[in-house]
């Protein structure tokens, strides 16, 4: 499999601010890649470099085998983009904007366009001036999804959508993935990333701090366990890999590092297990772990 996007050592500064700090990112062809990080961590800057809207200060970026800055126009025929903050020409109707953007990209599938309008329940005769944020976002989504392109770059595409439309969006992404399209989905709606993405990269302060499948990411992190035992769970806290333990009579709650899980479960069964629940960390917990120190500093 080739890489649709291959970025290494990308640096972009705005004045004093170092927005991208030697960022590395690889998106394999045919995958849905989640691009996760809080506001201001550099997601949109990375995407703008990929679109040739910004020129990077250092580092390499290869997009669909080409140079995103030099080959911008040729590459843009093969990709579609949905910005997070959709601005439209106030005088044009939604239908006109969809057609215009599709044509400028090299044509769009009329049948697909109309089907998408139906699915997203969007009225194409309204002037863009009168659309709400969610509806403006639908216009950009329909324009992108209706064109037959290899790569979709979506920058927080659902931040204004209601849950029903969010479900429609997820269906569309599943279909595109089945058809072999590559998708870079930047988001901070973690449930969405969890539901849609094959792999994901977590960005923090302009750097990728974690990248892989959700399984990979979970593997190296902790599992949360709640256990009720016959005998009090003494000595558990001293075992390696156990964190944040709270013992309440015969009930113990704690987190355990992935590689020590086996030893802990063996120890628990020696104590006699009455009930045991364990759940892998949610993406939210993974995410908070990477940013936990920031939260700590903020509350301290």
């Amino acid at each position, binding site marked *: 499999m080739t890489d649709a996007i291959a970025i290494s050592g990308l640096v972009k500064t705005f004045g004093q601010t170092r927005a991208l700090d030697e960022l590395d990112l690889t998106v394999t062809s045919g995958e849905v890649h989640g691009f996760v990080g809080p506001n201001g961590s550099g997601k949109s800057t990375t995407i703008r470099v990929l679109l040739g809207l910004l020129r990077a200060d250092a580092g390499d970026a290869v997009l669909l085998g080409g140079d995103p800055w030099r080959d911008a126009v040729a590459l843009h025929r093969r990709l579609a983009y949905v910005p997070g903050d959709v601005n439209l020409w106030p005088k044009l*109707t939604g239908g006109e904007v969809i057609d*215009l953007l599709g044509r400028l990209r090299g044509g769009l599938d009329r049948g697909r366009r109309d089907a998408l309008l139906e699915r997203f329940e969007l009225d*194409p*005769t309204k002037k863009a001036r009168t659309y709400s944020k969610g509806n403006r976002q639908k216009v950009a989504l329909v324009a992108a999804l209706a064109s037959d392109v290899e790569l979709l770059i979506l920058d927080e595409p659902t931040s204004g959508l209601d849950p029903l439309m969010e479900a429609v969006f997820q269906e569309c992404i599943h279909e595109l993935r089945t058809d072999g399209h590559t998708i870079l989905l930047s988001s901070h709606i973690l449930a969405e990333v969890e539901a849609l993405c094959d792999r994901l990269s977590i960005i923090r302060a302009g750097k990728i701090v974690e990248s892989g499948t959700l399984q990979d990411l979970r593997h190296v992190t902790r599992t949360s366990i709640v256990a009720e035992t016959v005998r009090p769970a003494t000595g558990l806290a001293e075992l390696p890999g156990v964190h944040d333990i709270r013992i309440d009579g015969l009930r113990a709650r704690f987190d355990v590092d992935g590689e020590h899980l086996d030893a802990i479960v063996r120890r628990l069964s020696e104590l006699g297990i009455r009930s045991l629940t364990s759940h892998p960390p949610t993406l939210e917990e993974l995410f908070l772990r990477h940013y936990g120190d920031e939260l700590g500093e903020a509350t301290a």
Partner: protein
Amino acid sequence: MSELTATSTLVRFILRCDRIRIAVWIAAIGALMLTTVASVKGIYPTQATLERSAAAAEDNAAVIALNGPAIGLRTLGGRVAFESGTLGLVVTALMSVLMVGRHTRAEEESGRVELVRAAVVGRYAPMAAALVVVVAMNVAVGVVVAIGLIGLDLPTTGSLVFGASFTALGLVFAGIAGVTAQVTENTRVVYGAGGALLGLAFALRAIGDSSDATLSWLSPIGWVQASRAYAGERFGPLALALSVAVVLVVGARALAARRDLGAGLVAPRPGPPVASSRLTSPFGLAFRLQRGSLVGWSAGLFLGGASYGSLGDAIEELVRDNPTLNDVFTASGGTSLTDSFFGNAMLIMALIGSGYAIQSAQRLRGDEASQLVEALLATAVSRVAWAAGHLTVALAGSVVVLGATGLGPAWHSPSSPMMPPRCRGCSVPPWCTPRRCGCWSASWSRSSASPRGRWWRPGLPSGFAS
């Protein structure tokens, strides 16, 4: 008066946000008037020169159409009012329209009023605050002008009335903008309608002053000029203007009660569900976006040109009655009076027309600032193609606009000597005079220089896209 709760806070807020803009408007209008007085003093150092030029102006319909009624020209004050009054009045009216639009409909369209009105703020407080500020600005303009002119040794009563005429006209147009801001959802339409009504007011008084005086009484500019500063002041017309301003504000308040926040009285119509085949390229988009303004500018300048054309006939009559007058002009300038009138008129119109070229080229900057360009450049459109689309429209559009300017007088009096023999060798359409060919290039270079300046300094505010 819970409907006006928090008005004073909003007034202070506007003053804080716009303190520089407000100061610049007042200072600019004041400076415009005072420098004119200084130059008028230099041009007419003696009573004899005043008398001579007064005699010429009183017979010159074209000059009267541009400047206003020829009254009191044998005094320095009258001359000042004659030479600078109309321009200053027009600028003051524009100030009112732009400031009221900016703080009523523009705020509402952006959604900021929603945020403000959700606080403990009365229903009409945002509009009231905007009007309070604009009224204060107009009073300040009047005071600055009056005090400045008194300071330059012009008669006190005349100076006060002259200053008051600025204030009165500004208030009328603040009222007009207040009403149009209720009617439409679109801020640009508020500005456009204000500008169009100002143009109409100017045209009515231009025709009225130079021919049928009753027409001048249909124009707010005519009312305030009828206050006869420095020439036997009359206060009635100023009172008329003030009453109309009050009626307009009351009307705006009544209209505001009939509409929802964010909506206009005129609901927007649905548009086409699919794009027409012309909307396929950056050029097609640029044309579509600028179509309305192109039509508006062309129509406005066509009417402007036509009103000059109608004056051409008056000048012809004048020349026919006074052959010696024509000889004087021919001897001094080498061309006939009619020629020089149309030449100058077209120069002014072309300068106004270059406003279109600048505004049109400014769209590049506007697109970039509002991030509209991002969606375009993410498609297979290069930066050059995007810029070329807008610039082609700016360039071709300015030809259309100036062509419409030239068609105006030609349409009105095609047989008039406004198409001088010189023009026969000119390759551009027959209604063009060689002087205007020069004007085209002036207008073009403005538009082509404009985006370049913006590109080098993207942080600059765009002056015409207020």
